[in-house]
């Protein structure tokens, strides 16, 4: 009797030990993969950014901050993030809520709205270039309507406002869908009962949105914001296609230093700066949008 109990205990312990190890074994390949292809290059990049001519130095950072495009790139990148992210979140939230109300054809609408997700960002930039360039569709349409007399330029250094609007439009078209997908998933998780209960108490749609939808959507909003903001700090291909050198952004400068100026140290300094900015943004979102577990269904 006693033996049997011991035997069962031993089996249990062995199973438990195996159960403890198994999850780690299962994630080991992913960890190995990340270490080899992410952590190692990351450490190398950081090291590279702090070396000039084989010795440790801050030279690359001095070179970066002293460059004539540095201030402009910082300003442009932040302006884009500040303009694009709130617009995208508002738009995606609106689209997501409308989708909830659709009785039929929801999948089709969602599918159409997410088409831009399948387009590479450089291709998206080129599509918008075809619309906005001198001989593009916009000018053709305006010309036919008699609104412009000839080719009008929208995308050069002398028209910074329309260039900025063009880039914002392209970014909205391209990347709102990713926010939408995350928010739609979040909206579907909100139990109907809360809304029904609110209806009984006579809550207006606005109150329902503010008191029920928005708080319960916090975790999804957080993920969407983190993802979009990090990607927005890395914006490159769309800007490159539409603005070229007329609209320097951080990633673009890293590319130019790496590829054209062939100074890998300064390029690495830019990469480290972009990472620091993205990390800071993520940290702020994690703090500001923390959803306490007890407030979630």
């Amino acid at each position, binding site marked *: 009797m006693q033996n049997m109990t011991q035997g069962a205990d031993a089996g249990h312990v062995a199973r438990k030990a195996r159960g403890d190890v198994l999850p780690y074994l299962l994630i080991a390949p992913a960890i190995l993969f990340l270490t080899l292809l992410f952590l190692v290059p990351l450490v190398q990049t950081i090291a590279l950014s702090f070396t000039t001519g084989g010795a440790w130095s801050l030279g690359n950072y001095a070179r970066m901050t002293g460059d*004539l495009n540095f201030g402009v790139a910082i300003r442009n990148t932040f302006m884009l993030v500040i303009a694009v992210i709130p617009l995208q979140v508002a738009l995606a939230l609106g689209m997501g809520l409308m989708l909830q109300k659709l009785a039929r054809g929801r999948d089709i609408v969602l599918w159409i709205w997410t088409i831009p997700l399948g387009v590479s960002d450089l291709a998206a930039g080129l599509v918008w270039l075809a619309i906005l360039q*001198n*001989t593009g569709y916009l000018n053709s349409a305006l010309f036919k309507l008699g609104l412009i*007399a*000839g*080719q009008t*330029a929208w*995308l*050069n*250094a*002398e*028209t910074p406002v329309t260039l900025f609007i063009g880039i914002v439009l392209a970014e909205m078209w391209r990347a709102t869908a990713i926010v939408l997908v995350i928010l739609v998933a979040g909206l579907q998780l909100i139990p109907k009962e809360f809304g029904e209960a609110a209806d009984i108490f006579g809550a207006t749609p606005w109150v329902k949105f503010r008191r029920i939808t928005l708080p319960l959507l916090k975790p999804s909003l957080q993920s969407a914001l983190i993802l979009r903001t990090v990607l927005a700090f890395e914006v490159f291909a769309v800007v*490159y296609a539409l*603005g*070229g*050198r*007329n609209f320097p952004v951080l990633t673009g400068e890293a590319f*130019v230093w*790496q*590829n*054209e*100026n*062939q*100074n890998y140290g300064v390029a690495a300094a830019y990469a480290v700066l972009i990472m620091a900015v993205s990390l800071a943004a993520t940290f702020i979102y994690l703090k500001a949008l923390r959803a306490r577990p007890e407030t979630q269904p």
Partner: protein
Amino acid sequence: MPTSWRMALAAGFLAVTAAVTTARPAKAEELVFLSTQLRPIEEAQKVRDLLLKGAPKTTFIVDEPSPFTVRMQAEHTAGKHTVSLVGALHGELQPLVPIGALDAVDDVAEAVKSRNIPASLMELGKFGGEHQLYIPWMQATYVLVVKRDALPYLPAGADVNALTYDQLAQWAKAIADKTGQRRLGFPAGPKGLFARFLQGYLYPSYTASSVSEFRSAAAEAMWSDFKTLWASVNPNSTSYDFMQDPLQAGEVWIAWDHISRFKDALQATPEDYLVVPPPAGPKGRAYMPVIVGLGIVKGAPDRAGAAAVIQHLEKPETQILTAAETGFFPVVEAKLPADLSPGIKLLAEGIARTQNAKDALPVLLPVGIGDKGGEFNKVFTDTFQRIVLRGEPVRPTLDAEAAVMRDIIATTKAPCWAPDKPSSGPCPVN
């Protein structure tokens, strides 16, 4: 059932991978020809289908200059060679010289002696040393292309084949004033070659130098002239990469660029265009001949094959075919046939007029600055950006950028190259 399905899938997958792996030629003696030139896909295909026809079996691959250098250095350091033959600009081959990645090709030079490649070009291929390290392959330069629509606005007394920078400015202004559109264009976009215009055309035309006189009084006058001229330049210039595109779109009537970047426009409607020499400044009509060379890698998997391919590419008939198909001109003695396509003929005549101009001033591509070439170009484009686009005062900008240039020259210890006067040590920035 599902298990057997999975088995079948796995077997299929294995079969596919096996097929892919065996389909990849892994023979050690495969002859790989890596080029930084003729990169656009149609041009690369012409090299494979037409130019290499009759040569030993060759795999022609292309890469951008920066990864090209990295790959060649990596293969050299690792001692594991896949590339036998390289084709690149003089300045792109140069970083391979100090590390000893290029094999001496004196034997090939001897074999192509009868082709009469000009001695001055062969000399460039020695990088100032004893041995021939590359064989000149083809040459090109930069020209002005003018759409005939622009001719009615040419200032009185100006000869379109012997323009000065002042006349170009007046011409562009007249066009802008009378048509309401700024139609002079430069390739100042991300992939454009505008830095070459500044260092090889504008600067030497005004100062007979691109380094020593960088911050001279003549340079100061030049920048204020150029700033005035820029008021008549199409503002989209900072997005132009290949000037054939805005020319064909009608955005631009007068454009400066590398001859191969005009080819499509000139071949599509040759009757619309003139090809004329670049403008002249107070010190002459500066122009930059571009030399593309063929080198053999030290430790090449197939040296004999590479040498044979070079000899094939140096045949007069291959060189003429190269000109007709790519717009790069022969380095060997070869008479271009009369039935050359009209667009290529225009380019050939434009080059001849440039080289034979009375005031022609040949300028070398930067020599001896190795992997600092990008930063050297940046000095010129930054100066342009600051003075012309951002309106910063000329004198302090030139002084600040001259300091950056001094650093680059000091790091690389590059002596002066033409048209700067020869220096015994690193080229001084006065």
